[in-house]
């Protein structure tokens, strides 16, 4: 099982880098968004209620990371849907491996990619003057939350692909990523959000994931936001993995 997961994970990760048209949006879109937001909205840090930050870029890094991780989840879903459409998925199903390894292999690649996505935005941030308040340990915490959250988003993508069985349907959820993200505290502090978005953001796990990754960047590592971020990311991951495995079983049972 482990050997199959590693082999399939390596393959999925390698293929991601061989599809620049899939890889580029994962970093290009959020990077552009980050540049536009920081350039146009940097004065919001002076608003009453805005947390003390070194700069707006520091605050926005977590939003860019969350956005990128969500897009990574969509990308994972599209990749597996393309395998279903092209028949390669059947080849894997016909192999003598535990079938759950097909899902776990894909998610292992998504997790590895999530680490790289987080590192990318930390690097971009540092290059353009951001400070990581919690230093190297903080970076590790951000990567950890990012990896867990990325795995969860990837599992959502995989679940959708296994249900929809075609890439265009999975691609169709792309706009939804932005909607879900905007009704969280990823881009602005929850206290500054107007009703009813502030109420929605309170129950949106993306708020806790973004705040958990943000905390080590803008302050020291505080237990509450980091643990809440980890719990939200872990919760999303656990539920989504369970649902994607169930979707796989349903698909195989219906075959």
């Amino acid at each position: 099982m482990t050997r199959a997961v590693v082999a399939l994970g390596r393959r999925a990760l390698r293929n991601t880098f061989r599809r620049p048209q899939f890889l580029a949006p994962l970093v290009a879109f959020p990077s552009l968004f980050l540049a536009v937001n920081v350039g146009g909205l940097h004065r919001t840090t002076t608003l009453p209620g805005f947390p003390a930050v070194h700069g707006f870029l520091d605050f926005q890094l977590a939003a860019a990371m969350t956005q990128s991780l969500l897009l990574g989840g969509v990308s994972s879903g599209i990749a597996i849907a393309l395998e279903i459409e092209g028949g390669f998925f059947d080849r894997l199903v016909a192999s003598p491996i535990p079938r759950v390894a097909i899902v776990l292999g894909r998610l292992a690649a998504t997790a590895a990619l999530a680490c790289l996505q987080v590192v990318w935005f930390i690097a971009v941030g540092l290059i353009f003057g951001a400070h990581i308040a919690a230093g190297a340990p903080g970076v590790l915490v951000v990567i950890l939350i990012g990896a867990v959250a990325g795995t969860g988003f990837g599992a959502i993508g995989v679940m959708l692909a296994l249900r929809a069985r075609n890439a265009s349907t999975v691609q169709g959820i792309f706009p939804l990523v932005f909607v879900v993200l905007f009704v969280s505290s990823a881009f602005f502090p929850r206290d500054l959000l107007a009703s009813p978005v502030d109420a929605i953001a309170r129950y949106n796990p993306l708020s806790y994931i973004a705040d958990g990754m943000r905390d080590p960047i803008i302050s020291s590592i505080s237990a509450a936001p980091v643990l809440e971020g980890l719990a939200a990311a872990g919760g999303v991951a656990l539920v989504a993995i369970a649902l994607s495995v169930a979707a796989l079983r349903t698909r195989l049972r219906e075959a």
Partner: protein
Amino acid sequence: MAAIETTDLRRSFKGGIHAVRGIDIAVQRGEVYGFLGPNGAGKSTTVRMLVTLLRPTGGSARVAGHDVATEPDAVRRKIGVALQDAALDGLMTGRELMELQATLHGIAPADVAPRARRLLDRVGLTDAQERRVATYSGGMRRRLDLAMALVHAPEVLFLDEPTTGLDPVSRLTLWEEIRRLKANGTTVFLTTQYLEEADQLADRVGIINQGVIVAEGTPAYLKAQVGRPHLDLTFAGSEPDLERARDVLVRFGDHRPASEGCHLSIALQDGAGEIAPVVRALDDAGLQVASLELVQPTLDDVFVEKTGRHLEGAAEPRETAEAPPAVVT
């Protein structure tokens, strides 16, 4: 014990489509079994059940001694599968795909690379092994697909239309490999739309039509069952009076669907000795024959007799307008 054995195997889909309606097959170890049928006859559905990709909705099937429904893992360990259209990952190189397949089949890590190399060499892809599969020709993809199916030396090999769309040279190369596998004792379940392929390679042939086996036996046995040769006739002129020709010819034998390039075809009741009377009768009726050909029985004749139509796509039935509709699989 048979390598493949099905009993009343059935598969239905939503909407009341009965793709496979109860088939009984017994393929012996080391046998090459040709599975013939037109598009939509139920070939691929049957194969997908035998390789555990589809659950049967009725009956049972055992492959390599294991039940496909209750012991699918054991079946998968013992079979090699090359499905229709060679579903390969175009982003990977030939070597990477071979090594992945070997790993998924539990080949010891130290043996993965040498085994991949050996098989790539065997199918003539050593020079192309570091190229991405997306750049391979159709023939190369098929050969790679076959090599991948062989990576764990399977007891039973399923080849689903392995030469469809290939050029003649690539087809012959694959035929040679299948012969070599047979010589090594591998059981091969070969689905094909090409009668010549079945004739050349198969020890026995099963013909499936509308989800049921309509004929089974060695190619020689099946051809002997048809027995009589048939006469293909092409008439002179741009608009020959085929109705009148039919009326004349019906005295000499049954009409059969004409193959491409001829106008009418009849199964002669009394064999070659009737050619001269046929020509005389047509001449007396004022019908001018441009060419005629006496054709000995082929698997196509078997197919026509059993299903009322030709197998290969180019020769659609002209005589049997009521040819049975295909079942979507």
